[in-house]
Each structure stands twice: as structure tokens, then as C-alpha cells.
């Protein structure tokens, strides 16, 4: 049997946050929340794990830094040492101040781009990819909670409906869960 999913729609982020807190305290598992902008404090409530994007960014930064050092060591010191402003490039350590800006630039370039591209890939939101939000209005002024029945086996569908209706929803809908992509 296909998985069923309940979509509960709210018209305010704080109302949704309060509703989510109430439902979670009653043991309901909220699979996801769709919102036009980040809702502060929703992640720990619905049990979203802390993002590892920062670690990715740090690793990309290290990669960029290493590439910069390897690059200017080979190009400017080993392969073709140049005498710039009376400072011949014969040693990495003694000329390092001259290379600090490029090291910094490479680190920032790799960290920023690496993080952004990883984010887009991981979320499957590269330009041109199909959107997977159930309601287009969640990109405008509506906030939707997704509650899958398979995640809440201890409640029946009608029990869940009753619980959700106790929060200040403006719409509720149950349908078959379809993976859009």
C-alpha cells in the first residue's frame, strides 16, 4: 500500500512553530516543514539534524589553501622564480607574506563555492531541477507541515487528523505520498 501523507497548512510561521511543538510533545513525528523562509528554531523541534555544511566548507577551504600553496610554490618559486620589487622568490618561508593574499583568496573562493555547490547538489535544487514542494504557495505566504503515516504507526489517520486540527491550521489534506522526482 502506498504511503499516505497529511499536509497541514498554516498562515504564520510562529503559529506553525507552536503547533509543531504541541504535536511533537504528543508524540507525533513531523517529517518535514515547507516554508518561504527559514523558521528560526524549527530544526530542533522537528528533529532535523544539525547541518554538516560547515564541515564541508572547512574542508573546501583547506583544499583551496593547499592548492594555492602547491600552485605558487611550483610556479613562483621552483619552476620560474621571479624577482619582483627586489624580492627574488627563492624560498617559500621568506616570501610567504607576498603569497598570503592569494592563499586567502583561494581559501575563500573554494570554501564559498564549494559550500554553495554542495548545498545545491545535496538539496537537489540546482538551477532547472524540478521543485519538490507539495504546495507552490509555500514559496509565497503559506507554511506547510508534512506528516507521513508510515512515520507515525502508533496513531491512526483519524487520530492524527484530530490532533492536527487542535492546532491553528487553515487547511488540512491527506493524500498518497508521491515522490515527485
Amino acid at each position, binding site marked *: 500500500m502506498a504511503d499516505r501523507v497529511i499536509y497541514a497548512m498554516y498562515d504564520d510561521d510562529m503559529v506553525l512553530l507552536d503547533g509543531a511543538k504541541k504535536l511533537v510533545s504528543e508524540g507525533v513525528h513531523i517529517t518535514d516543514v515547507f516554508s518561504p523562509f527559514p523558521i528560526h528554531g524549527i530544526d530542533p523541534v522537528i528533529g532535523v539534524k544539525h547541518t554538516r555544511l560547515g564541515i564541508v566548507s572547512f574542508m573546501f577551504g583547506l583544499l583551496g589553501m593547499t592548492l594555492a600553496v602547491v600552485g605558487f610554490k611550483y610556479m613562483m618559486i621552483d619552476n620560474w622564480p621571479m624577482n619582483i620589487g*627586489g624580492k627574488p622568490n627563492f624560498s617559500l618561508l621568506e616570501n610567504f607574506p607576498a603569497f598570503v593574499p592569494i592563499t586567502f583568496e583561494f581559501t575563500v573562493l573554494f570554501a564559498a563555492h564549494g559550500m554553495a555547490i554542495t548545498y545545491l547538489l545535496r538539496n537537489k535544487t540546482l538551477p532547472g531541477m524540478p521543485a519538490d514542494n507539495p504546495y507552490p504557495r509555500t514559496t509565497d505566504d503559506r507554511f506547510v507541515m508534512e506528516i507521513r503515516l508510515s512515520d507515525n504507526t502508533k496513531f491512526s489517520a483519524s487520530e492524527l487528523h484530530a490532533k492536527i486540527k487542535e492546532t491553528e491550521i487553515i487547511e488540512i489534506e491527506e493524500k498518497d505520498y508521491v515522490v515527485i522526482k
Partner: protein
Amino acid sequence: MEFQISTKAKKTIFGVIGVGLLAFIIGIVQNSGTDQFGTRLMSNFLIDGFFFFAIALGALFFLALQYATETGWSVAVKRVVEGVASYVLVGIGILVAVFLVLTFTDGGFFGAETTHGHHTGHIYQWMDPDIVAHDPIIAGKAPFLTKPFFWVVTIIYFATYFLFYKGFRKRSLAEDLEGGTKIHFKNFSKAALFLVLFGYFSSTSSWHWIMSIDAHWFSTLYGWYVFGGMWCTAMTTILLVVLYLKKKGHLQQVNDSHIHDIGKWIFATSFLWSYLFFSQFMLYWYADIPEEVIYYVQRITEYKYLFWGMFMINFIIPMLILMSADAKRNAGILMFVCVAIIIGHWADVYMLVTPGSMGEYGTIGFMEIGLFLTFAGVFTYFVLNTLTKAPLMPKNHPYLDESKHHHI
């Protein structure tokens, strides 16, 4: 009112002051026979006088910044910022005394001769008419580097800082009683004015008070560099006081997010300082013009480990340790970084003053450590004492509610 300095804290503070004074006196006895004694004594008072005054001034700047940007989250720690800023009153007194002594001794001339070329045991050699008469470079910097000009602008700086601190404090306490938004908007406009004045004064005062020690040398970035260090130590001190008060059970409304945000400020201002340090260093290193690079040649040849060591402490420790979000919420880790930064930035101010005034004779001994501890004790006592005089949580600030629910 609600916060009182505990007997234990008083004992610790007076203990630190006592140990500091004892070490200082040991240092005086040890060194009183040396030629550089007078200069070293005055250098020490200038270093510690300026370092702790700069912390308070940084806090005053931060307070004005919060008013001018109408920031909400920081309202819960506003009284702590005011408390740290209140030391400007003492700091002004100490610096005025130091400047008076230096003025009446022709820039701190105590008869010592160092082997270091043009340095003859002065702190402000441009205050000595005998030197200026034979030194066209310094003579060319008149009227900027003359005693009357120095005093006129110094009094303007101090009066401005004093009046603005008093005004902010008065309105902050009045807001607790009156409420409304009138005081809030007055703070807004006064803070904007203060930031403009501070923007000029922080640069020009650092030229007069510190950069003129190396009277031949100049750097256009100097004011920002000193300001970067000032801001960083101010944020660090504010965080230390907040952590202490939290540990004692005060500031219940200050949550992890506030501490996280102050931690971010420390992280950011450490980068600001490091960036300015390197910007100044790299241009001089690259151009290698004798009259410019002498400043670094002297520091690197005579104070190699201290010079690079303090840069590493002030840059690497906050960068690596405070990078993760969890570290900025962990009191133990923050405490370690804060203490390291305070020591590192004290060493930075030491590096600003000593090579210029003491030449190759500068060392860190009983005198330096003793006077630092004495000043630290006085500073802490004065700041905590100000905190006892008003409720730690402001009332009636328009953004108080936002700050109480601060969540990131």
C-alpha cells in the same frame, strides 16, 4: 542592588592587586639602579594605562554601536557593556597623570642613554626641545607633535569620552524609570554623533599617544589597528564578565544565543585585528623603504618571539577554537580563549610601546607582570562595583522583549 561583589570575589581581587603590587615593588627594587629604570617605569604605566582604558573605550564604542544600529539582541547584556565602559573614568585619570609626568620630564627623559641610535631614553622624544632642535623630521611634524597641540586634543578626546559615557549611563538609568521611546531615540542620535567623533578620535588619539613614540615613523593604518585590538579586547572582557555573572546565577535572561553572539564578535574582531596587523606589515615588508620598515626590523630582530607569538595567539587561537558553533556556547572553551586574547592583546600593546621607548632593553619581568596584575585588579573591582549600582537587566528598553526571546 541585585548584584553584590561577594566577599570571596573581593578577597580574590584584593589578593591579585596585592600580589601585583608586591611583584611591582620587587621589580622596582631589582631595576632601580639601571639606566633605563625611569623610562621603563613610565612605559609600563603607559602600556597598562592605555590597555585598560582601551578596553573601556571599546565597550563605550560597542554601546554606541548598539544604540546607533538599534540592535535588539544585546539589550540583555547592556548593563555589562556599560559596566565595562565605566572604567573610562578611572582610565582617563591614569592616562592624564601619565601624560603629565611625560610632559614635565620632556617626554620621559630620565637621563638614560641607550645604544639605539636616536633613542635616548625617551618615551615621547618629540617633547624634548633639545632633540627637536637637531631633528628636522620631528620639527617638520609641528604643530601636530608639540606639547600644546597634544594637550588641547587630548583634553578634547577625554572630555568627549567622559561626557558621552555619562550621558549614555544617565539616560540608560532614566529609561528604567520613565519608559517610552523618547530616550531611545535620543540615544540613537547621540550614539550616531559619538560614532562619527570616535571614528576620528580613535585614529588621531592613537597617533598622538602611541604612534608618536616612534616619532620618525608613521602608518596611515595605525589608528584602525589600535582600534581593532581595542574592540577585540572589549568584546572579550564583556564576555568574561557575562560568563562570571552567569556562573554566579545572575543574568537569567541571557541565554546561549547571547553568549554565542558575543563569541561571534570576538571571532570577527580577532580577524579584524589580524587583518589590519597583516595589512600594515605586508605593505612595509614589500616596499622595504628604510624609514618605514625600521619599525618592523626593530621588532623582529629584538622581540622576535614576543612579536610573532602575540600575533599567533591573537589570530590562530580564536580562529581555530572559535570556528565551530558549539565552541561559542561552551563556557570553558570561551573562558580559555578570552584569557588568551587578553594576554595576547596586552602583549600587542606592549609591542606598540616598548620597542620605541626602551629600544633593545625591553624585557618582561616583575615590573611588567606586577603592574598588569595591579591594573587588572583595579579594573575588575571598578567594573563590578559599577554593576552593583543598577539592576543588571534594563527595564523599559523598547527592544528588551526581543532580547529576552533572542534565539539563533
